[in-house]
């Protein structure tokens, strides 16, 4: 192509406390192209996009628009230059109308009447924009009444109203149904034809295969490689993303036996905030069971109910055949722990860690009764326990007394996992175990899961990362709107099969692989 590219990024660096988020990252984007930016969680995709969107300022590096160097000190500055970022978690005021959201902060006034809204102009323009993204809705509809997919389209309409030449979409389909996703693809292709450049961030690789003209892969904050349209396929993407042999990255040394004893039995369980339909499943000793589903499918809620954070309203939970909950017995995290069931929560900063306290404090928190004599914590025992776990999990920390909030995401996550390993749990529920974790720590967490299963624990791995679900699970339970939509044995595991069940399909409709 002649002339300079629409957007070029050279040598971008960004440092956060404890992590080097971006290290010398470069990127080129042409008009009318869909560029996929792919990478593991924590690879730096979102940081890079936030820099382009004017939310973060880089520590080093240059950004060129049409060949001219530009600064992006704020969101408004980026938008003026035609760069719009659509966030993973949508930024819309739910209580306002579509038109009000689209013109938020740039409301039009009646000529000469300062501060009096010109609703007619704004509604008219909103209607034109909605038509462009294929939304047949009145501009006065409250955004709170829209479905997730419609909200996504409203965000795109808003970006178009800003004359965006570059549209950055961060995990746009993470909460969309299949038909909403298809609708979104059409809009993306329309925009592309109109000359808009789209940066599409996703870790759903089959989506990348479908929409991208080119893919840039990031790994641990660095450029890992670039793939042209014809080179994009699942295997090549994953190889670049993890940067090593897949067998090594997702170790599977544990053997599973169909006759292994049942570690966790969930019998006709219903819980507070859950669906009316009860849920039942079993985990056997030595197996890793994936639990997939869309955001909001009720996976976390189910895990919370099993661990006693949420109230069970019906059914029984048994650990090794002993009743943990049900028949009038309530679970509490303390009782679940005592029975050998532990939960590694999804949100480690909110639920997993006391961030301002030390590594040792956090590792010993659930084990204090073992460390105490007469109610007083024995520091020497505590140090011993923490040291053992730090070594075993290879937690990289300057000292046991370092504030845990200052560690990198991967090492924080190892602390969250590690605090449960002082005793060998019988059942471990990992909720999004590798979210926001670098590739190295990810490999170690997978190895640890494999090792725990090898020692006879049962592992339930809740994950939205299909890649790891497919690679690590002996079988997969798929949830849809709180119900168990189906179960896929390892032999029948494919990305499409999981998505089919997760978006409301049934096992019957899905053909057996030939």
């Amino acid at each position, binding site marked *: 192509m002649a002339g300079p590219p629409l957007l070029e990024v050279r040598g971008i660096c960004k440092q956060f406390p404890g992590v080097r988020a971006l290290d010398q990252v470069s990127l080129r984007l042409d008009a009318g192209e869909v560029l996929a930016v792919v990478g593991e969680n924590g690879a730096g995709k979102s940081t890079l996009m936030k820099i382009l969107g004017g939310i973060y300022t880089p520590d080093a590096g240059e950004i060129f628009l049409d060949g001219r160097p530009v600064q992006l000190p704020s969101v408004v500055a980026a938008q003026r230059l035609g760069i719009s970022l659509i966030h993973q978690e949508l930024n819309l005021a739910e209580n306002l109308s579509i038109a009000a959201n689209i013109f938020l902060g740039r409301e039009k006034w009646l000529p000469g009447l300062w501060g009096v809204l010109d609703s007619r102009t704004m509604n008219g323009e909103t209607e034109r924009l909605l038509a462009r993204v294929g939304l047949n809705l009145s501009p006065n509809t409250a955004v709170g009444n829209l479905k997730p997919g419609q909200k996504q389209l409203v965000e795109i309409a808003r970006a178009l109203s800003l004359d965006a030449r570059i549209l950055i979409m961060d995990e746009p389909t993470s909460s969309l149904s299949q038909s909403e996703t298809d609708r979104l693809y059409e809009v993306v292709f329309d925009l592309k034809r109109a000359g808009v450049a789209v940066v599409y961030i996703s870790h759903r690789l089959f989506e990348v295969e479908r929409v991208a003209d080119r893919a840039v892969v990031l790994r641990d904050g660095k450029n890992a490689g670039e793939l042209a349209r014809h080179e994009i396929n699942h295997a090549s993407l994953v190889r670049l993303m993890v940067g090593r042999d897949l067998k090594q990255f997702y170790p599977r040394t544990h053997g599973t036996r169909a006759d292994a004893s049942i570690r966790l039995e969930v019998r006709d369980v219903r819980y507070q905030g859950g669906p009316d339909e009860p849920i039942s499943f079993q985990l056997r000793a030595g197996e890793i069971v994936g639990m997939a589903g869309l955001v909001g499918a009720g996976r976390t809620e189910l895990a919370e109910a099993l661990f006693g*954070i949420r109230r069970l309203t019906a059914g029984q939970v048994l650990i090794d055949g002993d009743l943990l909950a049900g028949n009038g017995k309530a679970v509490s*995290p303390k009782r679940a722990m005592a029975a050998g069931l532990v939960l590694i929560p999804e949100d480690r900063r*909110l*639920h997993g860690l*006391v*961030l301002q306290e030390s590594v040792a404090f956090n590792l010993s928190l659930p084990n204090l009764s073992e460390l105490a004599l007469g*109610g007083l914590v024995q520091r020497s025992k505590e140090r011993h326990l923490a040291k053992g776990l730090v070594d075993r999990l290879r937690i990289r920390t300057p000292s046991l007394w370092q504030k845990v909030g200052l560690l990198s995401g991967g090492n924080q996550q190892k602390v969250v996992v590690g*605090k449960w390993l002082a005793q060998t749990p019988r059942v471990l529920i990992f909720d999004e175990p590798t979210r926001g974790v670098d590739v190295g720590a990810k490999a170690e967490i997978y190895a640890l899961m494999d090792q725990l299963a090898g020692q006879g624990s049962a592992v339930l791995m809740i994950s939205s990362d299909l890649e790891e679900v497919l690679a690590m699970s002996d079988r997969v339970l798929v949830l849809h709107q709180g119900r168990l939509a189906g179960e896929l044995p390892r032999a029948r595991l494919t990305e499409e099969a999981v998505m089919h069940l997760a978006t409301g399909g049934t096992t019957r409709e899905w053909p057996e692989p030939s």
Partner: protein
Amino acid sequence: MNNIVSGFSRVAGYRTFGVIVMVAVLYAVLLASDPKARSWDNQMTIANRLGFYGVLTLGVGVLIISGGIDLSIGSVVALGAVSFVMLARQGFHPYLAALLVVLMGSGIGIANGVLVTKLRLQPFLVTLCGLFVFRGLARWLSPQGSPGLGQVPSEFKPAVENLRYWLFGGSPLGVPQVLILLLVLAAILAVLVHWSVFGRHIFAIGYNEQAARYAGVAIDRCKILAYVICSTCAGLGGLLYILDNQTATPTSAGALLELYAITGAVIGGCSLRGGEGSVLGMLLGAALLPLIKQIIIFGGISNDLEYVLIGLVLLAGTIVDQLLVKRN
């Protein structure tokens, strides 16, 4: 200076450093203000006041670490002070009455704790209601004016005098007994807060209740215990109040004490967001108010400016603290 701060912060936390400096500065100002301020008697007065404020500050400080707050302290002090006299008038031996007053505090703590944990009410609201209820009870218990130690039946007078002597008389060490009482209480609470499982749990709960819950901490039990510690200290405060002042006016006795105690704890390094604080800091924070009061007396400052001064010192402490937080 930076070296001193960072060196100290390794030992006791930078927040304690700030309050040490403030106490030292205020004490120096006081000593410089008037020769009489340097008298032994004046030191004893400060020590006496410190003992009283300190007991309340320690109690609320522990509660604040756990993420709670108690606005009813002053009213509990008033109720305790009035109850002591009323119990003695009803024929309870003063030793028993003293014990009952302290236990009444514990009972109030249980009630506050249960309301906050089991019914999930906001601590601010529950204890705000307590502020009215206990003050009202104190007034209702003493329909005719101010109950005083003079109304205690004469056969109990010697026992009351014993209590007064034990708590406020001189001591072998030449310091008021109430200060010794405070230091013993501080030592017990220091072990509890900084070395025990309970202490670990309240720091975890105060800073991140959810994380503590996910780690299997018995949240409700810990929180209730924190309320019990706070209100028991307030009950003890009521006993100290009546023994020191001899009479308690139910409408005004102990008024605003909750705010003094919270102020002391906060200046001493307890974050109102919970999860931060130290017993040493609380002790030092409790010393600020007695020092300010004496500075007003000896510095010839108008009494009416007392609150202004307290407010400004708290503000200064907060600003210094914020600057230190930013630097760290």
